[in-house]
């Protein structure tokens, strides 16, 4: 990849994040990021978005009441076969 366009950054973003780009593409992409503030901003916000989703790993939607209600209901309905 001799020259890289902004659309190539978008195309390659997942492989870049997953560290699956070959050395040449990685080098060209990082060089492009140094010169292109829009793409730099795109990559930064993309990483920020992934960090936000990572923060939700421990998020629980179920309240104690719902959990209790569900478990009580299941107890009445489930018997080993």
């Amino acid at each position, binding site marked *: 990849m001799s020259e890289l366009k902004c659309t190539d950054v978008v195309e390659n973003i997942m492989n870049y994040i997953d560290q699956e780009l070959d050395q040449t593409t990685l080098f060209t992409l990082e060089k492009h990021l140094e010169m292109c503030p829009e793409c730099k901003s795109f990559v930064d916000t993309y990483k920020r*978005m992934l960090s936000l989703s990572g923060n939700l790993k421990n*998020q629980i939607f*179920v309240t104690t009441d719902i959990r209790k209600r569900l478990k009580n209901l299941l107890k009445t309905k489930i018997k080993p076969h």
Partner: protein
Amino acid sequence: MNIFKKLLQSVLIRCGNLYNFQNDEKLINLYIQEKDECAFDELVNRYIDRIYSLCFRITKNKEITEDVVQEIFITLSQKLHTFRAESTFSTWLYRISTNAALMKLRKEKRHNNEVISDDVNYSENNNNNFTYIAKDSSKRPDVFLLRKESENEFNNALNKLPETYRLVIHLKDIDGFSYSQIANILEITTQAVKSRIHRARLELRNELSDYFHEWSEN
């Protein structure tokens, strides 16, 4: 000696919380072969929060979610003997759950002419809506509030996406499944998973553009 060891192990398992230390496959065997209800209870304890979150992410409605979670675990108790360990139990359970939630959502949409009420407004000003509980270890109120605010922004943006996109973001970026595990859950190719995640993330980033604009200015 072996029989004695087996007996002792079996007694130990039945005493106290020793089920916690058993892996999923062992619990499944105990439930199927010995009809041990405590083993199934442990599987429910282990997965109910994650399955509830997954289904709520798909349906965005707590009433439908409660119904579908109940159905999933009842089905699980009836079909557990069909689990063949060709994939991990969690992947298998996620596949059953995803299909059940999507089917339930489609059925409800048909029944209600495509209108399903959303219970996912995370605004702090609206107390009537469903709120989630985040396990946050931070004791500093300012850190907690900032984090909560960004989580709310993220959840609101994610909930604007179509369910197929919400689902892959949830599986990959929140629950942390690999591409091949997601392919197994959704029964599509790994390449199709990657492509769907790519499009979902671009759309999510777009939904978050105002938030990122403010963020870059601070």
